[in-house]
């Protein structure tokens, strides 16, 4: 499998929780959290693809959003975690630790 394709597969099922995790310390607007996620190009390649995901997370009740005027430019949409979203991040973090540990053990041959 090509490295790009591999990354796409790995993002599926993990990226949405990373998006939720960026909101753990309080509300942010999308451009801000995308800048965090996409800094190294591993999690996010095209900034725009995060919006459909935010839209779904909102419909699933994981995040809430409000449009707010900004001092500098046009209005921004601010997102914040719902209690359901918070729970989802916490549970993902636990499972991820287990998952990562298991994969690492296999890769290092410590069976």
């Amino acid at each position, binding site marked *: 499998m090509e490295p790009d394709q591999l990354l796409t597969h790995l993002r599926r099922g993990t990226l949405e929780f990373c998006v939720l995790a960026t909101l753990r310390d309080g509300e942010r607007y*999308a*451009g801000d959290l995308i800048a965090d996620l996409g800094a190294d190009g591993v999690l996010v*390649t*095209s*900034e*725009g*693809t995060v*919006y*459909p*995901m*935010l*839209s*779904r997370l909102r419909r699933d009740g994981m995040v809430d959003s409000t449009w707010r005027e*900004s001092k*500098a*430019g*046009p*209005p*921004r*949409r601010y997102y914040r975690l719902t209690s359901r979203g918070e729970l989802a991040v916490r549970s993902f973090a636990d499972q991820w630790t287990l998952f990562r540990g298991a994969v690492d053990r296999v890769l290092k041959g410590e069976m």
Partner: protein
Amino acid sequence: MQDVRAPQVREYLDRLDRALRDLPRDRRTEIVRDIQAHIDDALSEHPDPSATTIDELLNSVGTPEEIAAAAYSDMPAARPQIATRDAIAVGLLLGGGFLFGVGWFVGLALLWSSAAWTTRDKLIGTLLIPGGLAGSLLLGGMAALVPLRTSGAGSSSSPAVLGLLLVLLAVFLPIFTTFWLIRHARRTP
């Protein structure tokens, strides 16, 4: 706002809107509006952006097709369709009896020659009830007549109630069969 946007941006948003045309309207509108706000916000840092700046910015947002692919991958997969031929079979088994009585037999032939159902399903389709709704009305009619004859002296109302139940059952069964066949048909995506 619309008129002050650069033509490149307007063209980009149009392309995005078209790429999202298969989404439900509210989702499509939401995503276009979000991307629009993202672009407006990023451009507000450049008072007089050059064409290259705009291109670079749109580039980092991603192509409309990429964004659309991300949106569609979030949608539940479309339900596989029941084949037209199988749908006709189910329809004829239910109502074909009214088509000079032969419609049901055509439905029966289609049912048994189809690969969409197991033998169990085909038996259900055949036996519950032969003739479909027309068959059940015939059967129900007969069942309704029987208590009239036997209870002639008005001895008891229970045969009449029983007759009514039989009629209801006879009408219910072909409808049940229809749902059963639709549910169990092997579908093609």
